[in-house]
């Protein structure tokens, strides 16, 4: 870069600084520090999730330019996107890969926060908003799955909404509200589409802003074993530019992986696949294997394995109640794990976390093996 170019950039920066006071923001960020230790790598998981969410927004907007919701147009428009629109196949492939990787990184982010017990005071609110964001991500996945209106999506949504219908008291109403009637029809696409492109992005943006504000205000959580350490024994890196640059590097690597996956496996691979296949036909026989997306598999499999009745309760209803209680305990862990606030070990919490991880992993594997 020659001197004249440097001068031009400096002038541009000065022009912006005069109006937006960027210097003060840079000074603020430079004063912030990020703990440096053997588990520092976990700090990048949130950033990767954020990056993939941004990719989702961009590719989602591009898909929206051609996608037409409705039983008579949804499948046709997706087929048009992947076969006729220039790079349409790539946009859909990136959107689908990015969606799956975003849920994966959100799960990993949650578990690393859980096992490092970074949810402890004063970061309870960050945990709650993060849990909300994960739930929203999964709802994004569930609602987006139906939008191509193909055979597999139709029957998986019928099974998925049917399971919601097994919920106590509100189940039937919830199912009708979700489906827009008694059955999965064009009305369901309308609802899922509205949810996917308007309601969920709005909620996610709000919750994500809160989540990021909390992180910026409180900084990264220090490891628990730093509690008794002197300040000079602790290692830190500057948030700006060091951590930001590292984050950018991770984002570039993520982008590269995303590009590779999208081009080499545009329809996904193995259990993570989304071929367009045949158009949904409500009167056709269901395919031999109906399965949800991989991140719902553990719940789907567990509910399938339950007997018809447990005591006097219907098996599926019992499962949903247990999942509900389990999810609530997980969500409220900052309140329940009081020892974390005192920097004490909590074997019960760790055992609970390990059990949940094993349960999810084993049930997911069993779910795919038994098919």
């Amino acid at each position, binding site marked *: 870069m020659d001197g004249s170019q440097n001068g031009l950039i400096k002038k541009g920066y000065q022009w912006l600084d005069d109006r937006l006071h960027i210097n003060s923001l840079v000074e603020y960020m430079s004063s912030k520090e990020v703990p440096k230790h053997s588990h520092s790598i976990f700090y990048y998981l949130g950033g990767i999730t954020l990056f993939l969410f941004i990719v989702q927004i961009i590719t989602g907007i591009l898909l929206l330019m051609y996608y037409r919701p409705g039983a008579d147009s949804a499948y046709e428009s997706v*087929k048009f996107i*992947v*076969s006729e629109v220039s790079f349409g*196949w*790539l946009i859909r492939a990136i959107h689908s890969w990015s969606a799956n990787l975003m849920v994966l990184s959100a799960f990993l982010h949650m578990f690393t926060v859980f096992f490092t017990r970074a949810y402890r005071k004063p970061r309870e609110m960050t945990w709650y908003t993060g849990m909300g964001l994960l739930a929203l991500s999964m709802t994004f996945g569930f609602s987006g799955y139906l939008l191509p209106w193909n055979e597999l999506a139709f029957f998986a949504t019928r099974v998925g909404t049917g399971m919601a219908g097994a919920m106590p008291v509100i189940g039937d109403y919830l199912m009708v509200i979700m489906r827009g009637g008694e059955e999965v029809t064009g009305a369901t696409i309308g609802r899922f589409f509205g949810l996917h492109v308007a309601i969920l992005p709005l909620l996610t943006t709000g919750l994500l802003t809160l989540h990021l504000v909390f992180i910026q205000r409180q900084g990264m959580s220090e490891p628990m074993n730093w509690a008794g350490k002197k300040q000079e024994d602790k290692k830190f*890196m500057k948030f700006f*530019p*060091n951590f930001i*640059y*590292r984050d*950018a*590097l991770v984002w*570039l*690597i993520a*982008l*590269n992986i995303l*590009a*590779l996956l999208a*081009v*080499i*496996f*545009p*329809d996904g691979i193995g259990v993570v696949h989304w071929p*367009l296949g045949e158009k949904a036909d409500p009167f056709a026989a269901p395919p031999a294997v109906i399965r949800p997306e991989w991140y719902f598999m553990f719940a789907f499999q567990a509910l399938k394995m339950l007997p018809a009745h447990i005591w006097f309760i219907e098996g599926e209803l019992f499962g949903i109640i247990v999942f509900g209680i389990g999810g609530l305990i997980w969500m409220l862990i900052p309140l329940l794990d009081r020892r974390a606030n005192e920097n004490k070990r909590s074997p019960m919490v760790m055992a609970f976390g390990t059990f949940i991880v094993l349960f999810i992993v084993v049930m997911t594997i069993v779910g795919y093996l038994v098919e």
Partner: protein
Amino acid sequence: MIKFVIIFIGLLLFSINGFGSVNNCMSCHLDLEDEGGSASKFAKDIHSQKGLGCADCHGGDPTLDDMDDVRDSRGFRGVPNHLEVPDFCARCHSDATYMHNHNPSLPVDQLAKYKTSIHGQLLFSAKDKKVANCVSCHSVHEIGNGQMPYSSTHPSNLPATCAKCHSDKDYMAEYKIPTDQFEKYSSSVHGQALLERGDLGAPACNDCHGNHGAAPPGVSSLAAVCGVCHALEAELFEKSPHADAFLENDFPMCETCHSNHDIVKPSDKMIGTAESSLCTECHAADDGTIGLPTADSILTSLNNLVLAHLNAKQSLDEAILKGMMTTNEEFLLKEVDQSLIQARTLIHSFDMDSVAPKAMEGIAKADTIIVNSAGLIDEYYFRRKGLAVATLIITFLAFMLYRKIRKIEQK
């Protein structure tokens, strides 16, 4: 006290309910018969399922305890002999009013038809006691309708039912007709579909020969028999130059090329001028007809279409293997399949001007698939090159950023 009242009412209701349907025939006949005898089979019989009892066919008073008393009772008809069976069954089955109360959809012309059949003619005119009557095919006390899987007249059981007599050389010896029909049928395209694949749409014996009016189709009626299912082929044949020629020479229409009971899946080898071709069995190069040149042209057209189909499929498979979006081309290939089926059907017109346009239509579609598939394969390599460039740029940027981080952190 309440218990006794309930038991008393229960017994009373039971006795009232049971009173009207007393059937003492069963209690004796089951005792007298061996296990699996005809009385024990009756529960499975459609007549039993429709609420009819022994006395409805055999007459007599079923409430009597003694067999001799039953024989002497009013209306006793007993067991009919072989020659009496058709009239015995027709008492009800030819009575439209009676049948309307039990099964209005069942025809009542079985006896009339039976009398027109070879079986009926031999039984009534020649008093032949070996020829098939109603129970020979329908069984005695295990009668089911054609939809019941256990029934001897269910399509999948029917060939074996007919074969019971028609494959028995000794039994059929005096009638001087072949006994290899079942053997041939079993290995035919129809027999394999019905007996091996359970395709109930495939014809059994009665679909060609009729059932109660069973008769072998004559030379003139053969096209009508085959044409029931193969309507298009029959129509094309009727309009072809072969129709009159076959009639003049007493050649059975479909059977001449396809045979009768041992019809095999047709192949393109059946047409043309090679030795395996059926055309050469009647036609010769110097027979003064356009038979062989036409056969040769038709075969060439078909072969070209088959080859085009094969090439199109290979190109498409390669595009599919590369993970490209090929829905439209797959659909087009199905249309080529359809053209091939239609061109093969059009052979029955024995007219090159009918077959050639259909073959050309299929070849044009196959060519479109080949061109589109080649385009998709080019697109695949374009994507790979694009990926390589994008990956290089991103990797370069990542490397530069890494160097920058190292530089900052070394300060």
